[in-house]
């Protein structure tokens, strides 16, 4: 059972309140903000990396061009990173700029606003289906997952009927307790699936994002580029939002006064979503950078070639970001420059889409089922302890 493995430090959460980073991470932030830890992915037990836990350091590293996202010469990709093709996430400028520019116009505030009506329909359909089927339900399977999967499939031009396969592969990709071979195979299958899709859009570019990329940027983007971007958007576009929706709902169910605010006050929803993103920081491992020269961080020397893991959950609860009770959930807070979507040139390309989905789906769910509650004791809920993106394994609810 993978679950019985000890959870590596960067992913560790507090037992009694599994929304919070582990006490050990919090202690490091004040006592040893840049510390030496074993590489969290078990491929190389001897490899040591740095762990940065303070807001200012984490934000600084993510914005610092002396830190690279590209795999080093000694580092097979699959050893330390997610086994997806490196694509956008695994390259530095100017190559990064070449790949990212074609995407930015697809995910602008205005572009995402134009998708709102369709997102609202998708949300309403799923809620109606839940109501028809009646309680109990697994909120992850029946709502939190299908909503972003449908949205990203329609946006990209990926057939929704293929979701079973790419869901399974994406779970494997992000689960670091699995063997490297298994994850590498899932990465290859994801790429093969996307390759077939890209070829279809090359031959006959559809109206969706993949087709638009072929039509408008087909000359500068190779098939390999398109496969990498497509795979990254497909995985990144649903795992994160789905886990935010399910874990965010669970957190609100445990915080009824905060839940009431999100349910009852439309103006409160946008800042509430920022607070949930900050408080949960579900991308809790995976933001890794390699120093390309010697750099001093938090008074310690990071040598050229060494890796630094940035802890977003710890950074987002630092008093330097939020002097006033950073460990308290307060959905009425004025939003702060949190790093739940990263920082620097790799900051999440899909952040406005993710925000729109969360701002639409959360209040719609809470209004449709005002009596929503857990169908198992809170202590029985299981979490994705070893996944790059944190969340619940399932969320049994009734109403």
């Amino acid at each position, binding site marked *: 059972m993978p679950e019985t493995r000890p959870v590596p430090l960067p992913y560790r959460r507090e037992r009694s309140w599994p929304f919070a980073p582990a006490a050990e991470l919090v202690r490091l932030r004040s006592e040893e903000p840049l510390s030496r830890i074993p590489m969290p992915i078990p491929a190389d037990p001897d490899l040591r990396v740095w762990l940065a836990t303070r807001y200012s350091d984490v934000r600084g590293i993510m914005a610092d061009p002396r830190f690279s996202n590209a795999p080093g010469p000694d580092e097979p990709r699959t050893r330390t990173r997610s086994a997806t093709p490196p694509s956008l996430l695994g390259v530095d400028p100017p190559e990064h700029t070449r790949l990212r520019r074609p995407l930015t*116009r697809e995910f602008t505030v205005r572009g995402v606003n134009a998708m709102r009506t369709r997102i609202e329909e998708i949300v309403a359909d799923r809620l109606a289906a839940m109501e028809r089927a009646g309680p109990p339900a697994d909120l992850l399977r029946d709502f939190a997952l299908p909503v972003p999967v449908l949205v990203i499939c329609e946006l990209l031009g990926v057939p929704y009927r293929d979701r079973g396969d790419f869901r399974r592969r994406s779970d494997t990709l992000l689960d670091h307790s699995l063997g490297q071979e298994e994850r590498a195979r899932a990465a290859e299958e994801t790429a093969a699936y996307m390759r077939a899709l890209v070829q279809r859009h090359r031959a006959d570019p559809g109206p969706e994002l993949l087709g638009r990329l072929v039509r408008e940027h087909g000359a500068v983007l190779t098939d390999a580029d398109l496969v990498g971007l497509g795979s990254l958007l497909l995985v990144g576009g649903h795992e994160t939002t789905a886990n935010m929706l399910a874990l965010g709902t669970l957190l609100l169910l445990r915080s009824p006064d905060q839940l009431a605010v999100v349910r009852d006050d439309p103006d409160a929803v946008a800042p509430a979503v920022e607070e949930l993103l900050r408080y949960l920081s579900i991308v809790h491992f995976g933001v890794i950078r390699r120093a390309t020269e010697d750099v001093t961080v938090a008074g310690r020397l990071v040598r050229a070639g060494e890796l630094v893991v940035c802890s977003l959950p710890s950074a987002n609860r630092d008093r330097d970001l939020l002097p006033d009770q950073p460990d308290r959930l307060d959905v009425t807070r004025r939003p702060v420059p949190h790093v739940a979507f990263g920082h*620097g040139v790799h900051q999440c390309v899909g952040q406005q889409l993710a925000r729109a989905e969360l701002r639409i789906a959360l209040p719609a769910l809470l209004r449709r089922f005002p009596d929503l509650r857990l169908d198992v004791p809170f202590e029985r809920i299981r979490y994705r302890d070893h996944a790059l993106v944190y969340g619940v394994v399932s969320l049994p609810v009734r109403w």
Partner: protein
Amino acid sequence: MRVVVDRTRCIGSGQCVMTDPEVFDQDEDEGLVVLRTPEPPESARERMRAAVALCPSAAIRLEE
């Protein structure tokens, strides 16, 4: 107060547009920042500071 943006640094995060859509916008072609109001009123100062802090690529500057 004068706002200055650097489109070569911008990565199209949209955080400035979210913060003040009267002042910032993203163009249709590339999704990069464009200024709608280069000299916003004094009343927008706090929002402008927030936009500077939020921008992931240090593409926004305030000149007094």
